[in-house]
């Protein structure tokens, strides 16, 4: 997993959930991250969109539920 993309995604998730980047790893997901609920997930997708200028389609929004999944979507 390229470091640069991982760092960017961790920053996005941290900002969207308003938590520290230190609390996140590639394995962080909706399952194991308390504030990553459905609203948090939408906020993450919006922040992703803003950062990369790329909007996510419905499948991507529904399927990508971890840091690792999001890294795969980074353009």
């Amino acid at each position, binding site marked *: 997993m390229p470091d640069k993309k991982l760092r960017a995604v961790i920053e996005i998730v941290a900002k969207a959930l308003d938590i520290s980047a230190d609390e996140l790893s590639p394995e962080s997901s909706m399952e194991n991250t308390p504030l990553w609920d*459905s*609203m948090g*997930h*939408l*906020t993450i*997708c*919006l*922040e992703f*969109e*803003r950062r990369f200028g790329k*909007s*996510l*389609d*419905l499948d*991507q*929004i*529904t399927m990508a539920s971890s840091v690792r999944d999001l890294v795969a979507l980074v353009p």
Partner: protein
Amino acid sequence: MKFLLLSNVNVQPLLAHLQPLEVNCGAYNSLLADLSTANSPATAADITHVLCLFDADTMMGDARYGIGTFEQCNMFLATLSGFCSRHPEKVVVINSFCLSASRQLGYADVTHPNSLRSIEASLNEELISIAKARSNLLVFDMELLFRRYGEKVLLSNGLWYAGRVRYTARMFELLASTIRQMLAAYTHQSRKVLILDLDNTLWGDLVGEVGPNGVTLGEEGAGRCYRDFQRALKALQKTGVLLAITSKNEEADVYEALDTNPMMILRREDFAAIYADWQPKAENIIKIAEALNLGTDSFVFIDDNPVERAAIRKFLPEVAVPEFPDRIENLQTWLFGEVMPAHFGKYSITAEDAAKTEQYRANAARQKLAASFDLDGYLRELNIECNIHVNAAGQLTRAAQMTQKTNQFNLTTRRYDVTDLERFVKSAEHAVLMLDYRDRFGDEGSVALAIVDLAGGRIDTFLTSCRVIGRKVETRLLEKAIELCRDRGLQKVIGEYIPSRKNKMAASFYENHGFKPLFKSADGRVTYEKSIDAR
């Protein structure tokens, strides 16, 4: 200030963009319920602003597809109107109806009896008529955002089906800045003066080299870019913004271009001040501030030269200095789309706004006359006529503007908006006095304001526009205020002076008018009293 955000879709992502405003989000789809129910969160006493951001497609429901009626939209409007009238103390901000571009009738939508276009237009007409009747309802035209950026950039289908989020990140940013800018415009926090450079800003090329009639300015090509920019500036000036020039040029060249170049839209009389010389522009801007009696924190500076822009940012950081567009063909859209909303937003425009430049120019002429007369002789020469209106409902927008904008000759600097003043006018306890001024040089409109608390025998607010300082109109207004107290049967009247950073010039006003200081508090606030002689 505390905000409540209501919607019929998921707009929670907007909260982060509205920071540092204190905003709570209502429950999902609670818009209608919150506006209609007594004791809903929207009615809470600490909520000062209610933001209603609704999606018109969703509100239309099946009527969007030509099935059933759009009655729920009318019901919503009636609810909104009721809420605004029950809560005049709250400011309600709402977007206009803006349906997406999908039309099941296709080309027939224009003329069909169930045309979405005409339904949308009639709903907006109704919404606007409510806003005209309820001064606490502020409508912003959402369609303008879609025209400027397009639906593909602003609507997110993926997020919509994933979680009822209608908008993209870009749209949330735009909505937040629109709401901020409109609230700033509503409370008159906009800037007042636009300082312009000339060469390669108002026209192409250097007037010193190609001559007053050789500059690039005309109806074709690059010349038209500048000419249209001037047209836009003229329109901006009509909304009450003062234009001024600081340009490194020979003064004679500049005046010749302004007076004789047939392609100029802006002429000498369109500018409240003109400084064409070789002085640093920061110095000229300070001179303009003195001549107009306005603070440089109400100035915006436009110059194509990045060195000049950097110098102003450094020496006068309170002046707003927008970046100049890369391409001259974008000058006009840049002015309307970016400079105006960011710095010169207005929520309402009064007759005074349209005539502002004339007033400032007339003031310069009065100053010239003052140089040749003694004060009383000068005042006689002016043929001053004053008209004082008490509780004039039609002037409250201007009155609110005056309480918000007047800093120097303002005894108490209490800021009010239209809804506050409406309350004063309706109650028998308060009187709102406005003084209209005209003299041989022109009509200044309303220039002085007093709010008298008749129940308490107290002058709550007393202010005079700097344009008429030194012409003794404040004495006439004070006499009228005292007369109202006398008519009420009061034996004395209280006046206050609350010092601010800017109102030192008003400090001795009450003493000069026979008031006796009663007490002075630690923060410099002085309370005065004057006995009223019975008549």
